[in-house]
Each structure stands twice: as C-alpha cells, then as structure tokens.
C-alpha cells in the first residue's frame, strides 16, 4: 500500500473510513465525532462504560457492607477491632482473634512459600533449559487451578494426620521450651492452615516473580557475564534489579492468602482465640464468614459478621493496591 502523506488524500481516506462515501454527515454528528469514526466512538464509550461499571461495583460493595454493618459499628465502635470475645449467645462481638488468625496464617504461608516460590522463579527464568521451562511453569501454575475445597480435603486426609503424627511431635521434641510449639498437637491448627495456604500462594509468587525477573533486560546479564561473573553473581544482580517487583509478587500472594476460605476452614480448627503457639486451633475472618453467615439469626450478629467482611475488604484492597504499585514500578523502570 502506498503511504499517504498529503493532506488531501488523508482526508479522503478518513472519509472512506467513516463509511460516508460521499454522503453528507449531519453537522451535529460531525461536531461530536470530529475526525473520529462513529463506530469507534461507540466502541470507546461502551468499553469506558463497562470499565466504570466495574469500578462502581467495587464502591457499591464497600458501601453496601458499610451500611449493613452500621448496627454493629454503632454498638461496638472501634472496640470491635480490639475485643477478643466472639460470643453469638451473649451477642458480644470482637474481631481481634479473626484479624490475628488471618494475618498470622497468611504470614506463616509466606514464610514457607517465599523461599520456594523464588527458587522456582529463578530456576525457570535464569537456569532451566528452554525445553524444561515450559512444562515446569505450566505445572506450577496448575497448582493455582485446583479448587480450594480439594486442597481442604487433601488437608484433612493427608496433611493433618502427617502434621499430627510426624511434624508436630518432632517440633515439640526439638524445641520443648519454645512458646510457638506448646499444647496438644491435634493437627487442626494454625500450622496446618499456614502449610495449606503456602501451597496455594506458591504459583502466584513464582509466576509473577518469574515474569518480573524476565523483564530485567538481557544487556545487564550479558554485561555481567562479560565481566566474568558466575551464574550466582548474575542472579544476584538480576535479583537486586527486580527487587520491588518480587516484593509486589509476595504481597499479591499475601493478599490471596488473606481471603482464602474453604481450605482454611477445613484444617484450622475454627476457634476464635489468640495464642502464641501455632499448634493451637485458630480462625480467620473469611473462615468465620463462611461458617456463621448462613445461620446468623439476630440482626446484630449478622451485622457484626458483615463488619468482619468489611474489615477483610479494606485490608485486601490496601494490600493489593500496594502490591500492584510495586509491580508496575519495576516494569516501568525497564520500558
């Protein structure tokens, strides 16, 4: 095709694209459209509308949760966040054990998943031969496709008995005085939740880290190799350049762990308490919602549960925004 570069044929071309083919468009339409095609404008506006709708939906959800939890907010105020009793019978509600359980189980998951996930990411992006990379990344990402309840079942039948019979007695024998490993080891506890969650967030951490590491330009690697750096040294250099993106990946994994419900409910023991030992049962916000929402009969009870949802909503939004900013930050740095 010939390159059009004089004004006359450009206008003609535009007219052709407009589909007017010599027909006169009304001056009004012309004014709105300017030089744009009518279809394009409709398409643009429509997509904009849907994009805004999604945003409004999030706002609406937040508002709806807020207005439905007003009863509990007015009754308990800020004390809701620091009260440790959750008693549906006497209608005393405090969210602290759930907030504690949510954050501790997710942190525990990160402690296990971060070293694993990062190793996988480095192996796949820096060290693995090409024929190994594809199937390996596929397999890791497959972990993310397994439904939560399947993890839960696996937890009940495999993980919990293993923790109870092998891991927890071992921990108690090796660290008899550590406050982390006190209490009778039944397997349904914070540790089980942490381990299940770590497997579930592993694919998020490893696949995003891999992408971030890959986005570090090859020139950097080549320069390092040219100076005689070893693979380990090159990896260190790449790593330090992808740092904030990797941090973002970790925080995204954290966000996922915070909201995970079914698998956690099935292994955590569901007990609203705060203890130092990770061998004690605990509970999470999402778990309490799943457990108690459907049978909550009184208005205040229901309202307190919805307020729990609101707290989780706020926590995850903040964490996700933070993580996204970090990931974008690294990606932009190299573009």
């Amino acid at each position, binding site marked *: 095709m010939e390159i059009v570069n004089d004004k006359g044929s450009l206008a003609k071309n535009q007219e052709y694209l407009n589909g007017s083919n010599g027909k006169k468009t009304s001056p009004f339409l012309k004014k709105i459209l300017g030089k744009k095609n009518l279809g394009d404008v409709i398409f643009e506006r429509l997509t904009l509308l849907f994009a805004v709708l999604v945003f409004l939906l999030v706002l609406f959800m937040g508002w709806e949760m807020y207005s439905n939890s007003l009863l509990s907010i007015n009754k308990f105020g800020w004390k809701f966040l620091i009260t440790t*009793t*959750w*008693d*549906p*019978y*006497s209608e005393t509600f405090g969210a602290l054990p759930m907030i504690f359980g949510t954050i501790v189980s997710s942190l525990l998951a990160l402690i296990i998943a971060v070293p694993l996930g990062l190793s996988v990411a480095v192996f796949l992006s820096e060290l693995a031969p090409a024929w190994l990379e594809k199937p390996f990344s596929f397999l890791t990402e497959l972990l993310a496709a397994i439904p939560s309840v399947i993890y839960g079942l696996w937890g*009940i039948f495999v993980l*919990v*008995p293993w923790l*109870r019979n092998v891991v927890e007695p071992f921990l108690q024998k090796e660290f008899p005085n550590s406050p982390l490993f006190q209490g*009778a080891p*039944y*397997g*349904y506890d914070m540790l089980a939740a942490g381990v299940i969650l770590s497997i579930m967030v592993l694919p998020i951490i490893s696949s995003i880290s891999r992408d971030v590491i890959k986005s570090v330009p090859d020139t950097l690697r080549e320069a390092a190799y040219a100076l005689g750096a070893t693979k380990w040294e090159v990896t260190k250099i790449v790593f330090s350049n992808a740092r904030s993106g990797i941090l973002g990946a970790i925080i995204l994994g954290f966000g996922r762990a915070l909201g995970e419900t079914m698998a956690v*409910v*099935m292994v955590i*023991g*569901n*007990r*609203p308490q705060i203890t130092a030992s990770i061998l004690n*049962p605990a*509970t999470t916000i999402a*778990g309490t919602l*799943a*457990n*108690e*929402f*459907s*049978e*909550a*009969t*009184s208005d205040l009870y*229901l309202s307190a549960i919805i307020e729990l949802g609101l707290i989780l909503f706020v926590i995850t939004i903040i964490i996700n925004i933070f993580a996204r900013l970090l990931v974008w930050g690294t990606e932009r740095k190299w573009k």
Partner: protein
Amino acid sequence: MKNFLKGLLLGTLLVGTMSTSQAQLQLNGAGSTFDYPIFSKWFDTYNKMTGIEINYASIGSGGGIHQITEGTVDFGASDAPLTPEQMGDFNKAQGSDIVHIPIIMGGVAITYNLPSVGQGIKLDGTTLADIYLGKITKWNDPRIVKLNKDKNLPDKAILVAHRSEGSGTTFIFSSYLSKVSPEWSKQCGTSIAINWPVGIGAKGTEGVAGVIAQTEGAIGYIELAYAKQNNLPYCLIKNQSGNFIEVNFNTVSAAAAGASAHMPNDLRAVITNSPGKNSYPICGFSWVVIPKDIKNREHAEALVKFLKWAVTKGQADATSLYYAPLPKPVQKLDLEKLNAITSNGNKL
C-alpha cells in the same frame, strides 16, 4: 439465519404463553439446611401426587427467618424457634402473627473414638457438660470411670469436637447442656452458634465425624442419621428417669411424646432433657414457620394442604432418611394449628 431466530423467538413466546395458561401453582420456601433432604423427598412425592411445585432454598435457618419476615417466600424453615424479638419483627412487617409448625425431629448422637473401649460408653448430663467446658480432660477421669465400671478407660486426653458453623444440631446440643448444667447455661447458653470453651470446630456433620474418626480420644455430637449410616460408636446418655438411653428413632419419638403433654401453646417447644422412661434427652424439632394470616388465598390453601400431608403421611419417609418422625400427639397439635390458618381473616 434471521428466519431461524424469528422462529425461535415465536416458539419461545408460544411456549411462554402456554405454560402461563396452564398456570401451575408454585410455592416457595427457604431456610434450614438440616431439613433439606426430607423436604426434597416430600416436594418430589407431593409434586407427582398433586402437580403443585414447591421450591426450597436451603440457605440456613437465619436466612429462612429473614425471608419469611420480608414476605419473599411462602414459608420458612428453622431449627431454632424464633425469639420473641423476631416474632415481634415479623408481626410489624407482615401484620400477622407467625405460626410454628414442628415438621420433623432430629436426634443428636454423642460419638467418640476409643478403639480399645468399643461401643456404649455411658455419660450423664453434667459429665458431658464438664467435658465440653474443659473441666474433664482425660478419658479415665474418676467421674467417667464411675459411670463405666465395666469398661477399661484409657489414660487418653479428650479432644472435644464441635460444629464450626451455625447449626440446628448445635442448638439442640447446647440447649441440653444448658438444662443439665447451670455453669454451661451461664457461660455458653443455648444458641445455634456457641463461644466454645474448648475444642476444635469442624465444618458440617461430616467434618466433625472426620475429626473424630481420625483422632483417637476425640468426642463430638453429630446427627443421629449420620452416626447410624456410618456405624459410629455412640454414648448412652442418662435421662431424667435415671436410665441410660441409646439414641434411635424410638427413643427420640418417646422424648417428643413425653414432651407433648406440656407443649406450650405456640409449639415453640425445646424438648431436650424431656421426661419419660425411654426418652433420649438430646433431640429436638425443626419448624416450618408461616404467617397466621396468608394474603393470597390460593397459596394459603395449597400450603396448608401440603403441610397437613407432610406432618401426617409424610412422616413415613422420615426413618429412611434418618430423621425421627413426629409422634401422633404432636401431629394432632400441628393439625390444630394448620386448621386455624386464615386468608384475609376468612377461614380456608
């Protein structure tokens, strides 16, 4: 293609008008998940008999109470009776009183995992309450040994298991503990969900049963149906007359019969720990709740007719689904209530 679409549209319209002209009556209900298995059986049988279609959303007792209060369904189903406050709310919203109809019964088995002991550990109310309060922590506690002289109880820690989600089974169980133990009544009370002093929460009956099956030394309460289906060992519980009673359909129905003599007028009876020689003490009703005055006459007639069938002939399906059937005296009380339902003030 266009013709095809036109045809499709026309066809849909035709089918649409046809089905409205044949207007099958449809009733809607929502509530208890405990009731769901027997409800689906009933709705299916009843649909084949009469052509009336009944939809039921098993969203939980709380949801059922909300929906009937808002008037979005024809009936609600709940494992716990409405509180006076909820009944007041209903009256304000619907301008009619609410009627409780006991619809089916459930028994709660106390099951455990002690392979060396086997079937039939005996417990009484206060001992059971103290186990759940965390005051008795070993199976060879003198108080358990005293009740089971014929058994060799091991020196094993007791792991208490309970439902993690709100449940009608929990309501029945906690109401029993409240009646036999003042301390439980003060500290934990009777409720669909409890602030448990000790133990592990597991989701659903199968979750509790799973914890027990896997953990030696565990104890838990589960629905009679589930214990029977899975041949789990269960405790004999001491009733008011001092007998140790095994849980089964007869002993549960005996408890209801024992309680029916002093049923409150509104049938909101919690029948745990009821008198009677053969009464099993941990069992209870599940209720269908409907307005006393139903505005839509057609719906009122169909609903009352169905409920009358369910509380009488329908009870024959109970045992095959491991519920306990309503005893005759309670069926009679139900029918009296149903006969008093009106539509806009007129008798049906």
